[in-house]
């Protein structure tokens, strides 16, 4: 390295690191040289600063590692929030549908108790003018007043009607509600009404 370049670099380094009396003493009697040097200082400052900034840059591997870690963290955070919100929604929906089930069982029993001679015709239970129909997630009653839904069940539920008759017990009208779950595991609700 040429001597002047070395001195200039030393000057820049000294000026960056703070007040250096040696540096001042070295250049105080040489104003012209110092002035010329000062013009070069900014250039060198830039160069040195640039060099020091380059040290802060990350290599490709480091960047990839950081990106991978960030992706994993985002994935985990997203999974937590997604699962949490899904669970909350499911819990609320389940509690509502459970309440709906108890309301439905009351309505179903009231209707069945009103007429004793229910018969199964296809997917329906029929007694005189009354017809109780189950169609996927809907159960409705058709009578002289028209057609009306007994319950507002979620779309995932499948409703079916049956009549069970045993020798030693009363005839039973059964309302089966099947709920689609994860991995084809189905929840099953059975509502019974004696005739």
């Amino acid at each position, binding site marked *: 390295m040429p001597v002047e370049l070395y001195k200039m670099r030393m000057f820049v380094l000294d000026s960056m690191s703070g007040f250096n009396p040696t540096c001042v003493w070295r250049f105080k009697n040489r104003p012209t040289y110092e002035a010329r040097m000062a013009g070069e200082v900014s250039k060198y400052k830039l160069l040195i600063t640039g060099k*020091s900034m380059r040290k*802060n840059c990350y290599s490709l591997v480091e960047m990839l590692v950081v990106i991978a870690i960030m992706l994993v963290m985002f994935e*985990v955070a997203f999974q*937590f929030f997604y*699962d*949490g919100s899904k*669970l*909350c929604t*499911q*819990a609320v929906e*389940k*509690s509502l549908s*459970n309440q709906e*089930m*108890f309301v439905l*069982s009351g309505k179903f*029993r009231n209707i069945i108790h009103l007429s004793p001679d229910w018969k199964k015709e296809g997917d329906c239970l029929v007694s005189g003018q009354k017809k109780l129909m189950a169609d996927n997630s809907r159960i409705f009653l058709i009578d002289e007043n028209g057609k009306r839904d007994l319950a507002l069940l979620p779309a995932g539920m499948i409703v079916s009607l049956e009549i069970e008759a045993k020798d030693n*017990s*009363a005839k*039973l009208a059964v309302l089966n509600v099947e709920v689609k779950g994860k991995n084809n595991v189905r*929840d*099953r*609700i*059975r*509502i*019974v*009404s*004696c005739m």
Partner: protein
Amino acid sequence: MKKNKFTLMELIFAMGLLAMVAALFSSSAYNLRIMDRNFTRESRALQVLDNSLERISFEKNADFARIKDIFEDEFKKSVLECDDEVRKSCEIRNGRAVLEIQRKNGKKMARIEIKCPLNCIK
């Protein structure tokens, strides 16, 4: 430049905080899932007892054996039959038939008492 670097202590604290947040989330999600499952079980248990009661109330002079038959039949047809965490019990206590559905640890989920042999329900 020094501010871009972290001390080991800062890193440990940050990791600890992250682990704490993760543990909090996972435990709350786990508890929520358990709560949801237990709530569903309780609803199904109530439904079984409700169905049993409906059938028992239509029986004339139902004795304990008949009450037990009906209860066991309803339990067998319900979704609780496949659940290992739930057990049923049917016994006579102080002249009453006690129908109970419990968790494996003995905690009651649903219970009714029926006066035997009458259909009087308490």
